[in-house]
């Protein structure tokens, strides 16, 4: 009750302030106001939707949607644009967290199985979705005027984003349900490894799109484009790995103020990476991989830092994404998004079945794997944001389509994954109390109240 009262007070405060200053208020003030309002209200709405078994991310998006320019306009269009400053930081953070989840040593015994299942799923999804998107291109409200090579390149970009999965939602659902077992491990590994492949594929697809549309730095020159791709992919990995090594050294030697240092690392990965033409997603993923596999931290310090740092950044990221959603366009795109979601899910099922048949895997976890791959969230939005920033025209329309697609997958994805975990009997098998997930899904206590000692001891 106190939380709902708190939400009501925050809403009243935002309404009073905006009504008191009908003209656009001070720019710095409006950004801070939007951040404050989005943080508090989105977390509270996330908690409310969690009660009806939906993931918190859905609540963050919903809050942005309701309070955005097409709703109550508490987060105005200019505020939503200014909140977009967090996009780069959030994308890097999501990729870094995904990298931290890939422990090559732990995955090695299952590597063949994971690779085959993952790559078969990806392959079939590509085989089904790419031709379909290319054929349906003139009717898709993205860039119907594109034709020839340009149309093929754009379709490639769209397909990669449509296929992408969500490590963050997967981790959040696992943490929320305290799940542990073969299905949990297999799903997590496949989601992360396939996203790694997808990020690489996205980099290549973007280069192809830049070349085809003549907007890339190597436009019109195959050799230039090749060098650019090599620089972007290898350079991003090297850059991220170097920063990851520095961060690992810091973790070993000092390990102080980790939350701030982690956010600082993501800012450097994004800002300096963009300046050097590196792909922030790849660089951050490489940084996470290096930290986890070469210099793994001892203790829970990094996990706590990730929890503290990730939650506010991701809340703003998703709330801003919801607020940026063009509802008028969504009305037109709803049917298209629903159709794509159906085809994507069917292709996913087909792909995992093909993988199972290939290696003769008849286990339950392999059979239900596809149900854990349905959710889409941060990585997909992150990729769409990159396209929108590079191609403000069709990229923005694509972003709207992707957000509506994510909205559908956010509703059905976690529900499907939870059902699979329940069938596999893995819910509640985690022996220890989970810490809050990267999207704030976990709880430190069931009483709904943080233990008093946490305040007193700090």
């Amino acid at each position, binding site marked *: 009750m106190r*939380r709902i009262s708190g939400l009501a007070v925050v809403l009243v405060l935002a309404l009073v302030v905006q009504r008191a200053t009908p003209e656009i208020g001070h720019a710095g*003030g409006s950004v*801070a*106001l939007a951040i404050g309002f989005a943080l508090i209200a989105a977390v509270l709405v996330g908690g409310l939707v969690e009660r009806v078994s939906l993931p918190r991310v859905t609540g963050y998006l919903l809050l942005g949607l309701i309070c955005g320019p097409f709703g109550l306009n508490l987060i105005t269009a200019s505020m939503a644009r200014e909140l977009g400053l967090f996009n780069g930081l959030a994308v890097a953070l999501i990729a870094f967290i995904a990298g931290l989840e890939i422990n090559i040593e732990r995955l090695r015994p299952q590597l063949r199985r994971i690779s085959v299942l993952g790559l078969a799923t990806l392959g079939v999804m590509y085989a089904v979705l790419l031709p379909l998107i290319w054929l349906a291109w003139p009717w898709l409200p993205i860039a119907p005027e594109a034709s020839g090579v340009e149309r093929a390149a754009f379709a490639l970009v769209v397909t990669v984003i449509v296929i992408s999965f969500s490590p963050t939602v997967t981790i959040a659902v696992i943490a929320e349900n305290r799940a542990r077992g073969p299905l949990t491990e297999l799903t997590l590994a496949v989601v992360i490894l396939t996203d790694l492949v997808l990020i690489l594929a996205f980099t290549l697809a973007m280069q192809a799109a830049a070349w085809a549309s003549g907007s890339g730095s190597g436009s019109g020159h195959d050799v230039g484009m090749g060098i650019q791709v090599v620089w972007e992919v290898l350079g991003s990995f090297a850059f991220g790995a170097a920063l990851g090594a520095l961060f690992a050294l810091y973790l070993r030697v000092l390990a102080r103020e980790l939350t701030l240092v982690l956010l600082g690392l993501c800012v450097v990965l994004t800002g300096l990476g963009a300046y050097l033409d590196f792909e922030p997603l790849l660089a951050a993923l490489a940084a996470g991989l290096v930290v986890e596999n070469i210099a793994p931290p001892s203790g829970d310090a990094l996990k706590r830092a990730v929890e*503290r740092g990730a939650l506010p950044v991701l809340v703003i990221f998703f709330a801003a994404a919801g607020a940026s959603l063009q509802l008028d366009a969504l009305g037109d795109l709803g049917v298209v998004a629903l159709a794509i979601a159906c085809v994507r899910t069917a292709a996913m099922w087909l792909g995992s079945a093909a993988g199972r048949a290939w290696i003769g895997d008849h286990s339950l976890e392999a059979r239900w794997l596809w149900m854990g791959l349905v959710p889409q969230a941060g990585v997909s939005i992150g990729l769409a944001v990159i396209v929108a920033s590079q191609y403000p025209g069709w990229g923005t329309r694509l972003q709207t389509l992707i957000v509506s697609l994510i909205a559908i997958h956010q509703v059905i994805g976690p529900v499907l994954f939870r059902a699979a975990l329940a069938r596999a009997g893995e819910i509640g098998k985690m022996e220890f109390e989970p810490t809050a997930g990267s999207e704030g899904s976990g709880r430190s206590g069931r009483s709904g109240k*943080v233990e008093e000692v946490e305040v007193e001891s700090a």
Partner: protein
Amino acid sequence: MDYREAGGADQLDVNLREAAAPARLRAIDFLLRTRVALGLQPVTAPAVLFVPMGFVLGPQVLGLLPRTVLAHLDPAVTVALAAIGIFIGMGLETGDRQNRRLLAAASVQALLTILTVSAATLWLMSQWGLRLDLAAGVVAAVLGVAASVSSASAPDRLGEAHRLITRIADFDDFLSVMAGAVAVAAIGATGWGHGLIRFGEVVAVGLLAGVAGWLLFERAHSVAERGVFVIGTLALVGGAAVYVNGSPLLAGMVAGICWKRLPGRADRIVRNDVSRFQHPLVILLLMVAGAMVELTPLAIWLLAPFVVFRLAGKVIGAWAAAWLVPPLRAGDLAAYLLAPGLLGIGLALNFVQVSSTEVAAAVASAVALGTLASELLALMAAPGAARER
């Protein structure tokens, strides 16, 4: 010392002090401390280090902090100002008679300093042949308010007398924040009524944010969520205040008072969570202030009068305050109150936020440089007072 305007000891310093760096890094241990860098802490205040650093990195010298970046940092400055206001509000403990007497003495001292500096500035402006209109009055008032704050940031080794002086330095922030909010509300106001409404809006923002925080902090489901509520409330209180062209310091102070007075642990939660990022915010605030310094003729002309009038105001104010608190000697009090801390810079930055004019920029520059000069004066004066005792 916990509720001082900078919010107490730097967590990085504290951590490093508790658990020193590994042996291989011991030689460079001192470099790892933010405020101990160059061996200045605790001899001097953070402003002496970080304002010049900001100036060097800013658009006037190296250009590593260009104006576009400074504009992007404005929300962080807003949050930092709100955080300072919250600490001031939570530090207002007026429960016993002695504290009430100290608050009265501090307010008298601050009021006399404001009046001295403002009146002297207006007189100087008239001597320069400037028109004494509302804008001139606001400039004089902002300079007076920025001059009125004190930190008494001397080593804590003088026992009871220094404890009282420190409390006075804490309490004088109350009147300075109130007066600063009035000056900011007057900017662009169409009349007294409009100015009053603006002031009221900021108080309402502080109250509503205070109530929201009180309702939420203790009902967080996880430590991470609680952190989000605290950061969100800070941004909300500061952002809403600046959005209505008001003072985030006042809104933060009102919220801080709410959390201190309302039942529960809201004040301790805020203190605990804000301490994690409050020093980086303070450093950011000072570096932004340094980067915004422009050595224009007006700023240079305002600098010397600001320092001299502040010195005179502090001596007059300390004399009156010492009369209200008999154990204190006026000389000691004046010497220790010379150190301005960072609140004056915060007040000036808020002035720039609300009034983006060349005059506001010149005033902020004069206050930032005047703060440095006053800190150096305090360095010379305070040890003398200590020796006398």
